């Protein structure tokens, strides 16, 4: 009996002594990029046999994991900040952040001030915007997500000024929240929103500052809330990482980006 126990213990110890395979890449970070990266990684593995582990967790995690050496590459769905210059950023795609409402919501395009007023709680009923006399359900993203950071930055808000009615962690929660509530407003990645809208989810993307939230506008650089999807690294890249980055910018992979409604950086 206790022999079995010792045996099991030894096995565990032996396995912990094993070093993980060196030809493996670990990529962690933004949950916006994660599904895209998972698919691209599938293809990369099929072609080269190099294992790529993709873990979600938020752009903040991507940055901290790369800094601590827990990941080879970090997925960050925004441009690098001033205090992140110790890391190198490799743009792999472009995306944007769209404001979404329910498809049945007839509200006209909102101005910057109106959006700020909605998110700070000063404007709290659709009737003030020419719609039904129902309160506005404000959907906001949780901390640590770059979607949230970029949104706040664009509108010049601090997180404690926002009065949300619902705080979501992942993109899909936001999509489902707005699609399930005719009086909700939220913001998610354009790629995700357009995908869902194309797949019969009742969403409407609002134009921002007169520019429609479409991939075409994003491509022409007109859309005000656009962002880079980055892979960050620290120091020298090993051969596998370089190979992966080359693979990612190969035009042959563009169709996968398009499947997620992101704009590959090769364009």
């Amino acid at each position, binding site marked *: 009996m206790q022999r079995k126990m010792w045996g099991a213990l030894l096995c565990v110890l032996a396995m912990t002594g*094993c070093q*993980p395979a060196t030809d493996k890449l670990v990529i962690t970070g933004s949950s916006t990029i994660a*599904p895209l990266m*998972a698919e691209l990684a599938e293809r990369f593995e099929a072609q080269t046999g190099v294992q790529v582990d993709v*873990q979600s967790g938020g752009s903040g995690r991507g940055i901290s994991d790369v800094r601590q050496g827990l990941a080879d590459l970090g997925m960050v769905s925004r441009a690098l900040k001033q205090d992140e210059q110790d890391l190198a950023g490799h743009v792999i795609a472009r995306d944007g952040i769209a404001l979404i409402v329910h498809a049945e919501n007839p509200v006209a395009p909102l101005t910057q001030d109106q959006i700020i007023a909605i998110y700070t709680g000063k404007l709290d009923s659709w009737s003030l915007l020419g719609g039904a006399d129902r309160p506005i359900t404000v959907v906001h993203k949780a901390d640590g997500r770059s979607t949230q950071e970029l949104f706040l930055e664009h509108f010049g808000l601090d997180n404690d000024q926002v009065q949300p009615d619902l705080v979501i962690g992942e993109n899909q929660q936001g*999509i489902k929240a707005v699609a399930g509530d005719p009086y909700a407003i939220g913001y998610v990645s354009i790629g995700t929103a357009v*995908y869902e809208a194309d797949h019969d989810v009742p969403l409407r993307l609002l134009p921002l500052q007169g520019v429609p939230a479409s991939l075409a506008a994003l491509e022409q650089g007109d859309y005000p809330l656009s962002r880079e999807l980055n892979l960050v690294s620290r120091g020298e890249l090993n051969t596998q990482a370089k190979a992966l980055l080359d693979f990612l910018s190969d035009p042959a992979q563009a169709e996968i980006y398009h499947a997620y409604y992101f704009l590959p950086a090769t364009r």
Partner: protein
Amino acid sequence: MRWPDRLAAVSGALLLLAVLVPMGLMLWSLLAQGSGVLSVDFLLEDPSQAGRAGGIAALLISTGWILAVCLLVAVPLGLGCALYLSEQVPAGTRRAQWLGGVLDMLAAVPSIVYGLFGYQFFAISLGLGFSILSGGLALALMVLPLMIRSAEQALRAVPFSYRQAGEALSISRWGWVKRILIPQAAPGIAVGIILSIGRALAETAVLLFTAGYVLRRPDSVMDSGRALSVHIYDLAMNVPGGMPRAAATGLVLLAILVILNLLVRRWLRPAQGVLY
């Protein structure tokens, strides 16, 4: 029947409906969303397109590995502790109460705390990172109290007369344990194992922080692997167009739980109370 009884009978039936209706709705919505995707291929194919297409074969494998690690640690340790309790600690003594108290505490710890502990201790301090090993070990700790409890109950249920017969025949302690006690208690111990499997399968929070998200078939226990429950969460919350497969995975998980439940009942057929 007096009127209070009649009233009570009817109200009880209504209360029952109040519980059955939401459960029925839940099952119905799972079926509505997921049955279109469910098929034998679903179980045999690996996920592709970040899980939006394909099946869940790799996940069944990962889940199986995580469970294997969990049981490899929890069963010997749990059985050993239960044996200690049944052999060295007569019921009702101070030591029995202390240990019983500690076990109760362990059983009551919120699962997210196991997740935090697993993350800090296994993934970081022991350097196991996000791996099946971390996840399995953290889960092992979580099901340990359940395992010990069930095994202890089974061991203590072996009739005292057997023990006395063993002593009369001057059998060694080890012989007694190996040849009589454990085989006699085996069905009850098996029930404990099955209950632990069910508990482990239902757990998400712990695995999010320890075993990670990777969709590939694992090559070793040091690889990260995604369990079924984590897959349901990720597909529903993170992957565009992932709902149908999330619901289908949910149905598969439910089916596994039903089978486990039936196994428990079969082995517990001399059914006294309800084991939980």
